């Protein structure tokens, strides 16, 4: 069977709460990163507070959120995270992704991590669709999501306020059938699940 945690550029891991909270405390200082990631102003949480939050999240069994960290294959460096929040009743999940290490932006690492998250969502969690929200001022992310197979599903007009301007909140989604078709095409004649 395919190693579902391993892509072509990155792999999915779970780090220790110590390593992860230290990384987040650093990433959260980069306001370009936090403003691409969140629609609310970033609080300067302490490493201790972030660690407690992560530990509380990890205690939940079964997990409420399937929270992965992203490491590069080349240097084995922790560069970000991707998480899936399933709504089991309806077979839907919200996906969130962030690469805190800005040296790795625009190199395909995010797209690779998203492909792994989708593979996990459709073949391990067996969901019907995956949803995401992205801000109008983040075209790099939109392009990456399109590459991973997401389609635009509309825009909440002027839902964000940043730098005194209003920006749209865009929603994208991918259905199971679309994902299957896409992955069949990429590997002709091969079962994508194997």
């Amino acid at each position, binding site marked *: 069977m395919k190693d579902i945690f391993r892509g072509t550029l990155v792999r999915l891991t779970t780090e220790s709460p110590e390593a992860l909270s230290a990384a987040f405390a650093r990433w959260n200082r980069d306001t370009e990163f936090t403003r691409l990631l969140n*629609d*609310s*102003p970033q609080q300067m949480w302490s490493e201790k507070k972030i660690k407690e939050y992560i530990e509380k999240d990890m205690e939940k069994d079964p997990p409420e959120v399937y929270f992965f960290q992203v490491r590069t294959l080349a240097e084995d460096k922790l560069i970000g995270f991707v998480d899936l929040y399933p*709504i089991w*009743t*309806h*077979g*839907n999940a919200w996906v969130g992704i962030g690469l805190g290490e800005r040296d790795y932006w625009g190199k395909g690492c995010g797209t690779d991590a998203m492909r792994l998250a989708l593979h996990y969502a459709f073949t391990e969690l067996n969901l*019907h*669709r995956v*949803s995401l929200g992205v801000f109008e001022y983040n075209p790099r992310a939109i392009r990456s999501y399109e590459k991973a197979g997401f389609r635009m*599903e*509309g*825009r*909440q*007009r*002027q*839902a*964000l*306020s940043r730098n005194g301007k*209003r920006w749209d909140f865009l*929603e994208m*989604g991918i*259905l199971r059938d679309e994902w299957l078709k896409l992955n069949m095409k990429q590997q002709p004649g091969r079962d994508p699940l194997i």
Partner: protein
Amino acid sequence: MLDFQTQLLDARDIRFGSIDHEAHPEIESGWTHDAEFMRLMELKPAYPLSAAMVKKQYETVEKKMDEDKNLFYFTIRACTDDHLIGKAMIEWIDWTNSNGWLVLGIGAAEDRRKGYGSQALDMLLRYAFAELSLFRVTAALPEYNEAALALFRKFGFIEETRRREALHREDRRWDLMCYGLLRSEWEAQVSAGGMR
């Protein structure tokens, strides 16, 4: 001159009121036993609640109103005899981005199709824009709730996003729509004398 005279909580046939912790739990418990109502109102699985459970929920609602400051919850009452007709709320208010989410429900079947929903939405919008000064409001509505979709469209809401097949009910997949209305659009309607 600011129009202080317009009462924000009173309409022709209905008014907005607070929760009655003694009288309302029994009534709302009845609504939660109406599967059709629950499936129109809620995306989570419909589940009947006892009066005691509803009472507890009311306490949570008021605690959230007090502590989180991002929820405005109104009961809808009849002007004639004050009986509980439904509920209306602006929730998940995001003050930074000036956006709020609307929820509206008329509980008893005999109170539907009497224009109460329309009067409640009219008041809810006035509250959101004239009192809370929100920039925009959003409502998440299932594809199969045609009455709600028509009501929100009547008030100028625009279908902004459509999460394809995001709902699974009766062995069928349905879309989940987000309808949005901007304050500027609402103001234009009001000054044109629409909807009031």
